[in-house]
C-alpha cells in the first residue's frame, strides 16, 4: 500500500483512543479489500472492549470475522491468511491470552521471512489489550511488551495517545512484517485530537512529549501520562523533566533517548511490565553502552511492575505498578543527589 503520510493541514477532532483505532480499521477496510479483521467476539458483540464496534455492520461478517475460543487456532489462520496475501488484523481479548498463540506469533509469523529466504512475508497485525488498573487480576492484566520485543522478526509498538493509536495501526498495516500492538486498557476512553484521513505514525520513533533539562523520563503507554503529570508537579517545584514517549519497543529509538540523556545526564525508565529483565533494562544497557555514558551524572533508575502477579485487591493492584507519586519521588531523589 502506498498511502500518503501525514499532511499538516488535515483537520483533526476529538476522538477516544478506542474510536481512533476503530476509525483506522474502518479506513483500512474501506480502502483495501485485502484487509480483514479476526478475533473472538469482534463481530456483533463489538469486541471485548468495544473497539471494533459497528464495523461488522459496515463491512459484513466476511471481513469482520468472529473466531472460535482458540487463540492458537485464530492466530494460526491469521498468519496463514497473511502468507497468502491478505492483511489480517487479529484482536486478542486480552494480551494475556497471547500466551496460547505463542507458537504462531513467535515461531511462525516472526520466522517465515527469514526461513524462506525473503521469498515470503507475513503482514499480520496483532492487537493486544494490555495492562493493569481495571481490577481484572493476574491473568488479565499483564504487560508483555518485553516478551515480544525479544523476538527478531516482530515489530512491537505501544501507542499512548488516540492520534498514535490510529497512526501506529495504519503504519502496522503498511508494514510488510508482523506487528504487535499493545493497547493499554485504561487508555481506551482517553480523548485526544486525531487527524482525519489516512496518516501513519512511524514505527521505531519515540516522541518527546515534554522538553526539560534536569532529567529524562522514558515511559510508554499509560506511564507517559503518569510521567507527564509528575513532570507538572516537579516543574512547580523547580525540577525540569523531559518526558519521552517510547511508542516503539522493537525497533527502539536509540537516537532520541541518547540525545536526551546526553542533555540531562539523568535517566528514569518507567514501564508497567515486570521490572526485572524488562524494557527499562534494555534502555539502561543501551545508554551504558552508548556515548551518552560519559554524560551520566547519576545512576539510571528503573520503575517497573512488582515482581509478583498483578493482585486483584484494588490497592495492591495500584501498588504493583508505578504511579505518579512514585515517579515524582524517584525524580526528586535523583535531582537531590540522593542516589
Amino acid at each position, binding site marked *: 500500500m502506498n498511502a500518503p503520510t501525514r499532511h499538516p493541514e488535515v483537520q483533526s477532532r476529538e476522538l477516544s483512543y478506542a474510536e481512533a483505532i476503530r476509525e483506522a480499521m474502518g479506513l483500512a477496510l474501506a480502502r483495501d479489500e485485502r484487509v480483514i479483521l479476526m478475533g473472538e467476539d469482534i463481530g456483533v458483540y463489538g469486541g471485548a472492549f468495544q473497539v471494533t464496534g459497528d464495523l461488522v455492520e459496515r463491512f459484513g461478517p466476511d471481513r469482520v470475522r468472529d473466531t472460535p475460543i482458540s487463540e492458537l487456532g485464530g492466530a494460526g489462520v491469521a498468519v496463514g491468511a497473511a502468507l497468502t496475501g491478505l492483511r489480517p488484523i487479529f484482536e486478542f481479548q486480552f494480551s494475556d491470552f497471547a500466551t496460547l498463540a505463542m507458537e504462531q506469533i513467535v515461531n511462525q509469523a516472526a520466522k517465515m521471512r527469514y526461513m524462506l529466504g525473503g521469498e515470503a512475508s507475513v503482514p499480520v497485525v496483532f492487537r493486544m489489550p494490555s495492562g493493569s488498573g481495571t481490577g481484572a487480576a493476574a491473568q488479565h492484566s499483564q504487560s508483555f511488551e518485553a516478551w515480544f520485543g525479544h523476538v527478531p522478526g516482530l515489530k512491537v509498538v505501544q501507542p499512548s495517545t488516540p492520534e498514535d493509536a490510529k497512526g501506529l495501526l495504519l503504519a502496522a498495516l503498511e508494514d510488510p512484517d508482523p506487528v504487535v500492538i499493545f493497547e493499554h486498557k485504561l487508555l481506551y476512553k482517553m480523548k485526544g485530537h486525531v487527524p482525519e484521513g489516512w496518516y501513519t505514525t512511524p514505527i521505531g520513533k519515540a516522541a518527546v512529549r515534554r522538553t*526539560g*533539562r*534536569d532529567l529524562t523520563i522514558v515511559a510508554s503507554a499509560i506511564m507517559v501520562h503518569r510521567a507527564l503529570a509528575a513532570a507538572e*508537579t*516537579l*516543574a*512547580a*517545584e*523547580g*525540577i*525540569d523533566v523531559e518526558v519521552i514517549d517510547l511508542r516503539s519497543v522493537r525497533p527502539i529509538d536509540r537516537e532520541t533517548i541518547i540525545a536526551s540523556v546526553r542533555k540531562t*545526564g539523568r535517566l528514569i525508565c518507567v514501564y508497567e511490565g515486570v521490572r526485572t529483565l524488562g524494557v527499562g533494562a534494555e534502555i539502561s544497557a543501551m545508554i551504558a553502552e552508548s556515548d551518552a*555514558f*560519559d*554524560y*551520566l*551524572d*547519576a545512576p539510571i533508575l528503573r520503575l517497573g511492575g512488582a515482581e509478583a502477579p498483578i493482585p486483584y485487591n484494588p490497592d495492591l493492584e495500584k501498588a504493583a505498578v508505578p504511579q505518579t507519586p512514585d515517579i515524582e519521588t524517584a525524580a*526528586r531523589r535523583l*535531582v*537531590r*543527589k*540522593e*542516589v
Partner: protein
Amino acid sequence: MATEVILPKVDMDMESGLVSVWHVAAGSSVSKGDALFDIETDKAAMEIEAPASGILAHVIAPEGTKVPVGSAVAWIYAENETIPEAAPGEAAQATDVAAPPAAAPGATCTKVAEAAEPRPADTRPEQPSGSVETDEPRPRATPAARAAARTAGLDLARLVGSGPQGRIQSDDVAREIEARERPAPAVETPSRQPAPEAPAAPVSWTERPGALAVTRRKGQGSGAPVVLVHGFAADATGWAPMEKALGNAREIIRIDLACHGRSPLKRIESFAAFARLAVQAFDDLNLDGAHLVGHSLGGAVAMSIADIRPRAMRSLGLIAPAGLGPEIDGETLLGIARASRAESLAPWLKRLAADPEAISWDFAQAAMLSRMDEEMRAAQRDLADRLFPDGTQGFDLSAALGRVEVPLRVIWGKQDSILPWRHALRAPDHASLTLLDKVGHIPHIERPQACAKALGELFVIAEASSRG
C-alpha cells in the same frame, strides 16, 4: 597571661546559657569593653563585653553552643603574647555535656556538627582485598564528572564530592574548574548606573549571557552564612535595612534572580526554568551549610532550592513567600513592572506596605533609579506573564515545603495585600509563624528589626539542633 572569657551569670536562677553570636572572630584583636559575644538564657538575650584587651583565641564555645555558667568560652591573649597550640587548662571543662569532648581545646571555631560528622570524601569505599593497586582508592565519581575532569586535566582525588557517599558530580568538577580560572570570589561592585533618559517604549528585549549575579558581605562570626533571595521586581539592594538589623556576625550572600538587579535577562518558560537558574547559582556557591531566606517570589525559589538541596540547608526563612496558593495581586506586580517613572511607580509601591505613607516620594524615586533599564522591565513583564498568568500563581511549592526538614520560619505581615498571610497555613507542622501586625508585603523593609530578630532566633535554633 591569658584572660579567660567565661559565661557570666546574668540571671538569678541561670544555670547555663547559649552562645548565640560572636561579634569578634578568633584571631582578631579586641579592646576591653567591646561587645564580644551574645548569650541567650531561658529569659533573655544579652551582649557580653570583652574582659580584657588583646587577641581572641581558643573559642571553644562556637555559636549555638550551650555552656554552663562560669565555664570558659574563649581566651584573650595580650598583643605580644605567644598563643599556645592548646587552650589553657587541658580539657577546659567548658562545653556542655551534650557536646562531644573531642571538640574542646584547639578546635577553634569548628562547629561541633562538622567535627562529629565525617566529611563525605573521607569515607571512601574500602579497597577490595587482594587488589594490587596503590593504597589510594579510586574516588567515587559519576561518568559525567570523570569525563569533565579528563577533559580539564583535573585530578579527581583532590575533589570533595557533593553526591551520596561523597560521590563527585559533574557540578563539583565544574566548580573546581571555575575556581581555578577565577580564584577571587565575587565581591560587591558599585550598583547599576541609571540610564540618564528613558526612551519612549521599546517593548522588545534580548537575552543576556552569564550566570546570576551574587554579592557577598563577609561576616565576623563563625556561623553558617545567610543566603538571601529577593522578590519579584526587587533586587539584592532591597535587603539593606534587614542586613543592617542582622548585624555583622554572619556572612551575607545575596542572589539576584534572573531578569532582576545585576543578573542577566533570560527568557523564562516556566517556574522550573526560573528556579533552576537560582539552584545553579546556589550550587556555585558551594556552601557546606546555609540559612536560606527568601521574600515573595524569592521565597518560592528558596523553597525549591531547599527541596532540591536539603543537605546544604541549615534553616529556611520565608518572608511572605509566593507558591503557597493561587491568589496574588497581579495588578500590582504588573503595575510595578510597567512603571517607567517614579510618578507611576509610587502608587503601586504604596500597595506593598501596610502604611502607604511609609512609601515616601524619595523611596519611590530611589526604587525607580534601579529600574531604569527598559529591557529589564520588559523582561520582568514577560516573566510575570509566565509565572503569574491571569494574575494567578501558576506554581505550587506547598508539597516541596512539606518535605523541608530543617528548622523553618514563616514571617508574614497581617496587612499583606499582595499575598494573603493565610497561605502560611500550608506550612508543615514544625514551621514557626511570625505574624506582624500593621505590616504589609515587605516586612523586611517595613519592620527590618522584627524580621532580623525572628530570623536570628531561627538561625540559632537551627545551629543548636544541627549539633544534636
